[in-house]
């Protein structure tokens, strides 16, 4: 029974590679799918993540959280077409960064192709990844960061952290050449965002009253809806990362859904056992944990592996936000590190274990006779985490210098950022 998924995928295995080699003939099916995928991933930031995070932030900071998410998407969109795409996907310089050849999308026209899809579609697809990655970071620091600092930080961080790492893995850089497997962004997106969030949370410090007063989420309803939109968009994120409408994309689609579902169940049952209530916030968090962990593995593993990866993510995420956070004492407001960092690391490791050449000949993990892959995965995780941590600290201090401090005034923090910074309120309550 368990051989079925890869048996179906097997005949399709060689198709994408022959396409990529023959390159440069446009495939209308692939192009249509990639335009849809791009639109799906776009939705994850200003809709999915905005609601997911907004619902978890306090009632007085709900709009500020949504504002930071929207502005991250808008800034990312502009930076990407000005210089971000060129830095990440321009001609390689020493395996470290792309060049400035494609500044302002220079040299790319309607006839330019990336594999079997127009370069414009490829660039926009990659742009949505840059946008959501920086937006994920803000989960660690809601309720207390200056909006101006967030804007400056976003510009610097996409340019100097995201673009190089995306280049390392997907743009022809050293990590991809080394053979690191990251199908849709375990290192580039989730470990990267999780570690940056943790560093930012540590530098900013805890929220006033953290650990003493109750910080109720403004609306678990919004968070649950946000998680559902993220799940929906993630089909474009993972199945779209094949950059083709083929069997591997179908396999990625299947394992993505399975991992999300079992991640939610694992988190829910863990919570039910330990704290006696199966919460909706727990289910929503488990969905995201499962999705994060399957991201690097999506196009490489079969269905049974996705059950293990998803269940592991649900349990690790639960431990990450309940035990780890309390023990280490940092205030990662909405658990960007606890969920994305921890489950991203798990997913990247699991890819090195479960990558199955029957699904995708590009990946062979420890369980299929290639122990070296696990080692490569560890190097890619450590390199990403170290580069992000050090780079983010430097950018934080530059941002602090530019905007004259990172944190809102104490009175603003107590009043709430919706009112103090935006002059609005999320809910009309008499």
């Amino acid at each position, binding site marked *: 029974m368990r051989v079925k998924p890869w048996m179906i995928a097997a005949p399709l295995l060689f198709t994408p590679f022959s396409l990529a080699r023959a390159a440069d003939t446009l495939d209308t099916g692939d192009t249509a799918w990639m335009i849809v995928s791009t639109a799906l991933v776009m939705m994850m930031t200003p809709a999915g993540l905005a609601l997911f995070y907004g619902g978890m932030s306090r009632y007085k900071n709900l709009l500020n959280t949504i504002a930071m998410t929207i502005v991250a998407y808008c800034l990312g969109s502009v930076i990407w077409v000005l210089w971000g795409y060129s830095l990440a996907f321009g001609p390689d310089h020493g395996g470290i960064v792309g060049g400035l050849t494609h500044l302002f999308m220079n040299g790319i026209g309607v006839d330019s192709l990336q594999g079997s899809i127009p370069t414009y579609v490829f660039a926009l697809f990659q742009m949505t990844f840059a946008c959501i990655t920086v937006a994920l970071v803000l989960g660690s620091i809601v309720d207390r960061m200056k909006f101006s600092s967030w804007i400056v930080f976003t510009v610097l961080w996409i340019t100097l952290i995201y673009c190089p790492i995306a280049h390392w893995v997907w743009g022809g850089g050293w990590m991809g050449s080394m053979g690191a497997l990251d199908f849709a962004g375990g290192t580039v997106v989730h470990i990267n965002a999780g570690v940056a969030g943790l560093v930012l949370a540590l530098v900013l410090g805890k929220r006033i009253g953290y650990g003493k007063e*109750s910080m*109720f*989420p403004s609306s678990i309803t919004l968070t649950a809806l946000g998680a559902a939109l993220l799940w929906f968009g993630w089909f474009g994120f993972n199945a779209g990362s094949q950059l083709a409408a083929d069997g591997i994309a179908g396999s990625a689609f299947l394992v993505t859904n399975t991992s999300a579902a079992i991640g939610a169940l694992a988190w829910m049952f863990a919570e039910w056992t330990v*704290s006696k*209530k199966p*919460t909706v*916030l727990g289910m929503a968090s488990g969905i995201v944990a499962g999705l994060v962990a399957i991201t690097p593995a999506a196009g490489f593993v079969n269905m049974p592996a996705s059950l293990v990866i998803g269940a592991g993510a649900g349990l690790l995420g639960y431990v990450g*936000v*309940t035990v780890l956070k*309390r023990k280490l004492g940092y205030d990662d407001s909405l658990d960007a590190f606890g969920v994305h960092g921890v489950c991203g690391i798990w997913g990247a490791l699991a890819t090195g274990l479960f990558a199955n050449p029957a699904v995708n000949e590009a990946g062979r993990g420890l369980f299929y006779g290639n122990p070296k892959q696990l080692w490569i995965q560890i190097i890619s995780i450590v390199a990403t985490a170290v580069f992000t941590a050090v780079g983010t600290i430097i950018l934080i201090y530059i941002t602090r210098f530019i905007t004259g401090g990172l944190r809102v005034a104490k009175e603003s923090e107590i009043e709430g950022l919706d009112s103090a910074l935006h002059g609005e309120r999320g809910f009309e309550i008499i």
Partner: protein
Amino acid sequence: MKKIEAIIKPFKLDDVKEALNEIGIQGMTISEVKGYGRQKGHKEIYRGAEYIVDFIPKVKIEIVVEAERAENIVEKIREAANTGKIGDGKIFVSPIEEAIRVRTGETGKDAI
């Protein structure tokens, strides 16, 4: 004149209103309030962080009546709002000096 303030469990509001209608009470003011007494609060857990919810939602009913009717009304409210469990609420009775109907300017008994 007396003012009767009853703090009750929200789901008992309809029972109390009906019981008072039966004895001819024609108006009341209610508000949603929060508080705690012997019932204390409860605990909610979000991603492992425990928050104590001290203040529990209740409904407060206010009625101003002629002094001699107060005792009967208090009894009716008590019967209707009683579940026998902790947290059923409290009733307070206090004297009222004056009442004025805004539209006509009537005062005292005529105004209530």
